[in-house]
């Protein structure tokens, strides 16, 4: 059984900051929506049904031999901070955290995949890889899906494919997402052009990290909207193609900043770094914004005292529930801001490793 306290101390595989284009692409994620053939969808499930689905899945998926490092976390039995902790870590959705009744998540020890039980659909399988690696993520999730399928019968329709609670997911039941860090496009105010290129094939864009709705640290997530009529590989190719375009735009914007104002850029990222190293109390929002500058600074070789995996980790570990788990006690907003500043000081400001290990 995974202990959340232990998780808090470690770091998911997908944050290691390697893989193709990982200076811009933080993670590639795929999720599959699946339902069991012998139960009604969640909306028409009684409390008894929910419990029965959870029990059935725990029992059957427990038989998968290759999964000895996989544990089940009973989300219904967790307090609010622990649920929030799993959301910040991207192991469960906000929807699962906020729901009622029997529900949970299967997580492997490296946090490379998770299977939510009783979310909008009976099963939500998710794989996250570091960098732009959608094909890698697809191969892995396809195998996981095959393994699960040996032990359960999915609701599947000859013509419509995998049947889901919401008709927007029917067919492949697949959502492919790429999380991009695009500080230079934000800084040069070229984001508009980016959105225009997206609307053409109706991809969804949204931010991710952050307490509340702001403070996104210049992260944007793109994903497919449609799930029917195209194969999984075709959907992946479509999202990949757009991701490549965005990467190209962001690189151009970064080059522009370097060529037309290196001093200002260097000043900006250095100040951000200085603030993070020395602040005594700092909000989540400010932390995100400054970390975003630092991340770009490291990737452009302007800051050499810290490495990308550390910066990636700080985005997650300075979130409210993480700070409280790491500290081992619940904290008020004001106390969190102090704890956050201390945490940042402990992890920045001194050379952690040899800078030659820089991989971007």
């Amino acid at each position, binding site marked *: 059984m995974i202990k959340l306290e232990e998780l808090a101390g470690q770091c998911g595989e997908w944050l290691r900051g390697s893989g193709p284009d990982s200076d811009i692409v933080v993670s590639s994620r795929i999720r599959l929506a699946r*339902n069991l*053939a*012998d*139960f*009604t*969808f*969640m*909306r*028409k499930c009684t409390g*008894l*049904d929910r419990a*029965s689905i959870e029990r059935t899945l725990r029992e059957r998926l427990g038989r998968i031999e290759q999964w000895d490092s996989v544990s089940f976390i009973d989300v219904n039995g967790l307090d609010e901070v622990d649920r929030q902790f799993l959301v910040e870590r991207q192991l469960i959705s*906000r*929807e699962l955290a906020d729901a009622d009744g029997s529900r949970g998540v299967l997580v492997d020890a490296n946090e490379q995949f998770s299977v939510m039980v009783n979310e909008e659909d009976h099963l939500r399988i998710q794989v996250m890889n570091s960098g732009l690696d959608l094909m890698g993520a697809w191969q892995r999730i*396809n195998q996981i*899906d*095959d393994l699960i*399928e*040996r032990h359960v*019968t*999915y*609701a*599947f*329709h000859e*013509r*419509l*494919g*995998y*049947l889901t*609670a*919401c*008709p*927007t997911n*029917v*067919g*492949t039941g*697949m959502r492919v997402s790429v999380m991009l860090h695009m500080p230079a496009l934000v800084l040069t*105010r070229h*984001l*508009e052009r980016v*959105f*225009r290129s997206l*609307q053409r094939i*109706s991809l*969804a*864009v*949204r*931010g991710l990290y*952050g307490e509340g*709705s*702001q403070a*996104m640290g210049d992260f*944007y997530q793109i994903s497919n909207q*449609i799930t*029917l*009529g*195209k*194969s*999984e590989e075709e*959907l992946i190719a479509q999202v990949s193609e757009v991701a490549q375009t965005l990467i190209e735009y962001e690189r151009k914007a970064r080059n522009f900043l370097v060529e037309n104002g290196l001093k200002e850029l260097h000043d900006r990222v250095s100040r951000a770094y200085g603030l993070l190293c020395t602040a005594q109390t700092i909000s989540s929002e400010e932390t995100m914004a400054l970390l975003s500058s630092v991340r770009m600074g490291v990737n452009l070789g302007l800051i050499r005292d810290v490495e990308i995996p550390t910066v990636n980790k700080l985005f997650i570990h300075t979130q409210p529930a993480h700070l409280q788990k790491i500290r081992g006690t619940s904290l008020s907003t004001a106390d969190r801001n102090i704890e956050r500043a201390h945490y940042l000081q402990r992890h920045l400001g001194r050379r952690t490793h040899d800078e030659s290990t820089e991989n971007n």
Partner: protein
Amino acid sequence: MKCDHCDKQATFHITERVGEQEHWEERHLCESCARDYLSKPSEADIQSSLASALAQHLKIGQTADELAKLDKKTCPMCGISFFEFRSHGRLGCPHDYVCFEPQLMPLIENIHGEKTHTGKRPRRYAKGLDQQTQLIRLRKEMQRAVQKEDYERASQLRDEIRELEDEA
């Protein structure tokens, strides 16, 4: 131009497809409102586009009387009414795809631009509607048997379910 949401200058101009293929909506937002707008959870956006696609489709296809009648239609398997589905955007069971097919198919085509799955298929699945609904029915009956502490009947039903699943 002013931002749609506040008094600041609009610097982001977003054109979005809403529901119907030919229907486009323009948004003019300042930077901070654009951030807020884009950070909205995408599921909610999908939900609203689903609702508007559905509303569009129903408006064209039905009179008020027909719609009222349609709203009362329920799935014999899970008991969900069409009204409940269109108010919440979530279906009640796999059988809904069959019993609401005339209404759902245009909607699905509208959302996805396609109507046939071409991707992965599970190695085994309940063949046809009968087997699928049979599974849900047996499962419900088994639950009732357990509640009544009729364990003999429950275990009979469990075996039937297993048999069906193995056939799949």
